[in-house]
């Protein structure tokens, strides 16, 4: 066979080698196990979230990556340790293919099944979500970050297996991957530095993520760059692994004169490979370092996290949407993604809105607003002229009243009372206390409790009588007595007193004893 003919056959034989590796890879046997885990963990978790694309997609990095990562890392290490485990290194060193080509084929075989399983799971998740959402489209950045993370895990596992082909390597890599994943998750949830953003796992997202502002891809770009850099560095080390396994071939200075003089075993590498591999390692480390540096500059904004060097100002512009409204005397509008919740919100707010109608500063309508402003969670507030009650799903009623994504929880009396309490807190106690567990002053607490009682709602726990209060302050029993007294007034008398005293009450100038 001529050299030309041999070269023409090379892609075909490479394809055949890849097919063999795919067919014989152990990862395929783990896929049924992963399917069961997927149904029990990410799929069920996502089903409990509100049908909002970005919120449902958060399970890809917070749950799927954990399940897939353990097996991807462990079985990649298993594939990487094959030659060492079977003691066929010397035998294979005599074959026509260099070591890096054989290892690349084995790694590609593992990656094929890992990515196939991962993308199939994402497809199932997105198809289920698409059948329920009423607004928006599927986010692709979590899929990209998840895929790159799995590639990185496979590369690390494979290289560990190739370098240390012991029986403990695969399980230890698998355990190490999930420990790292959870440590990253812990850092993402806790008060840590911006470098924690490099972890693909993230804390719970606000339920309206991606609805009012587009999700900025800055952090996702930095994560892909970081993990891509690590992958490149690890692959470079893998390419050098025959030399690393035979330390005698790396004797200084004789073997480090320049490519071509590396005395690697026959078939292990080509003369150009060490230079390329070292360049790839250096480039990978540079990319990972750059990504870490960029993550250090991140700061919270309305659209998530901003990394100045990567940020597109268009991400900060609010998204246009046609609000979904109901009601005539008191109009309630929600984001179209929360259409399924509109009637529950209206049913909760209508009675309290009617109770306070006509009072100074009482809202004439209610409108859903973004939960996050400049990175901080916002409570319900009354703004504008004429006054509008702006609420969101996160802080209505000290988190307990948050949108839970299911109408079942929305119809519960607790949620209803807490949502009404948030509305009354915003009116009676002002914006400073909205969303906090209770109004600031005892008189404000008593009035809110009385108004809730008047509309027939269950009094929230924070307003119920429990033991004695701090010294010098009215006790919860005294507040409850005042609330009962105020609630027992005729509706017209209560309304008239509030019309006259609401500004003073809101300013904290009314004491408990002054309540009628």
């Amino acid at each position, binding site marked *: 066979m001529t050299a030309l003919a041999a070269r023409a056959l090379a892609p075909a034989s490479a394809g055949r080698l890849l097919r063999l590796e795919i067919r014989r890879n*152990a990862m395929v046997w*783990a896929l049924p*196990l992963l399917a*069961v*885990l997927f149904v*029990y*963990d990410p799929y*069920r*978790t996502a089903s409990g979230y509100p049908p909002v694309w970005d919120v449902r997609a958060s399970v890809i990095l917070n749950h799927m990556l*954990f*399940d897939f990562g*353990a*097996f991807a890392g*462990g079985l990649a290490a*298993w594939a990487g*340790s094959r030659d*060492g*485990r*079977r*003691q066929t290194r010397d035998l294979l060193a005599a074959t026509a293919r260099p070591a890096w080509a054989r290892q690349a084929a084995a790694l590609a075989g593992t990656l094929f099944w890992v990515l196939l399983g991962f993308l199939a799971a994402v497809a199932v998740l997105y198809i289920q979500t698409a059948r329920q959402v009423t607004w928006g489209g599927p986010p692709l950045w979590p899929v990209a970050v998840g895929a790159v993370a799995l590639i990185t895990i496979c590369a690390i596992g494979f290289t560990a297996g190739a370098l240390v*082909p*012991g*029986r*403990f390597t*695969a*399980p*230890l890599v*698998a*355990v190490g991957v*999930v*420990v790292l994943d*959870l*440590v990253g998750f*812990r850092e993402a949830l806790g008060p840590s530095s911006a470098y924690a953003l490099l972890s693909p796992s993230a804390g719970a997202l606000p339920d309206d993520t991606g609805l009012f502002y587009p999700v900025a891809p800055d952090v996702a770009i930095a994560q892909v760059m970081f993990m891509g850099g690590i992958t490149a560095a690890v692959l470079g080390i893998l390419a050098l692994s025959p030399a690393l396994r035979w330390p005698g071939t790396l004797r200084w200075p004789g073997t480090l004169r320049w490519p071509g003089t590396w005395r690697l075993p026959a078939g292990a590498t080509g003369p150009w490979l060490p230079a390329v591999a070292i360049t790839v390692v250096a480039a990978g480390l540079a990319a990972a370092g750059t990504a870490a540096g960029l993550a250090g500059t991140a700061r919270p904004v309305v659209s998530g996290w901003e990394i100045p060097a990567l940020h597109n100002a268009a991400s900060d512009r609010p998204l246009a949407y046609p609000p979904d409204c109901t009601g005539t005397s008191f109009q309630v509008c929600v984001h179209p993604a929360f259409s399924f919740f509109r009637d529950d919100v209206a049913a909760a707010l209508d009675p309290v809105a009617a109770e306070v109608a006509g009072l100074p500063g009482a809202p004439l309508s209610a409108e859903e607003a973004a939960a996050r402003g400049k990175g901080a969670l916002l409570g319900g507030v009354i703004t504008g002229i004429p006054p509008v009650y702006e609420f969101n799903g996160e802080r209505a009623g000290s988190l307990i009243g948050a949108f839970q994504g299911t109408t079942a929880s929305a119809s519960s009396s607790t949620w209803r009372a807490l949502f009404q309490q948030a509305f009354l807190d915003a009116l009676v106690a002002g914006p400073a206390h909205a969303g906090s567990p209770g109004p600031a002053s005892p008189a404000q607490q008593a009035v809110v409790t009385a108004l809730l009682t008047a509309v027939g709602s269950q009094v929230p726990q924070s307003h119920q009588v429990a033991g004695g209060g701090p010294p010098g302050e009215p006790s919860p029993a005294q507040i409850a007595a005042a609330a009962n007294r105020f609630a027992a007034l005729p509706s017209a008398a209560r309304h008239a007193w509030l019309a006259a005293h609401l500004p003073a009450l809101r300013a904290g100038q009314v004491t408990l004893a002054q309540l009628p």
Partner: protein
Amino acid sequence: MTAAGWQDPPAAPVLAAWPVPAGVRLVWLHLLSRRVPAAAVALVGCGAVLRAALQWHWTFSSGPYAQRIPLIIEAGAAAAIVVTSHSPFGEAERATGRWLPWLRLGTALALTGLAIGALQLGVTGAGLNEGIMVLARNVIGMTGIGLLCSLVTGGLLAWILPLAYMAFAQYALLEAWRSPWTWPARPPADRGAWLCACVVFAVGLAAFTISGARNSLADNA
């Protein structure tokens, strides 16, 4: 050919300077062939990692999240135990080894005890959420799962099922499942959870003792 270059074969080396009972030597060779010393190092490493996780607050201090990293490390310890079930000798050893089932039983029991001890040592004074009882129950149960898995996959891949159970139990922990089969999510004194973990361990240990892990001569780690 002449006999000039012929030499008598070298005499068999004296095995030890002092007499070692054959039983002890048999046990030691069995442990070496299963990489038990390396497994012991791995178990001590698991204890050290658990200590580091508690010391440097890699995990939450309370609530269901607090059990997540300890559970992973316990699964790692179980995985280190069950990969020692692989024999490099295969059928030949089965045909000649009369004491093999007892050696398998003793090795698995000793390593399980060592794992619990090493992890307990790691958390001493560090305040592990749910305490040593849950730790021991998790190690016992997941080791049993791994030993059962070794009958099907062979010892080298027997870590797969304990890890899958761990991933499943993570979800059960967060969802506060009450089934005793999800024993990592149950309180320390839960009798049903103890029963399930011990039954799995007993069945796995008995099956492994009797038949040993599935063998493949291709893998010789």
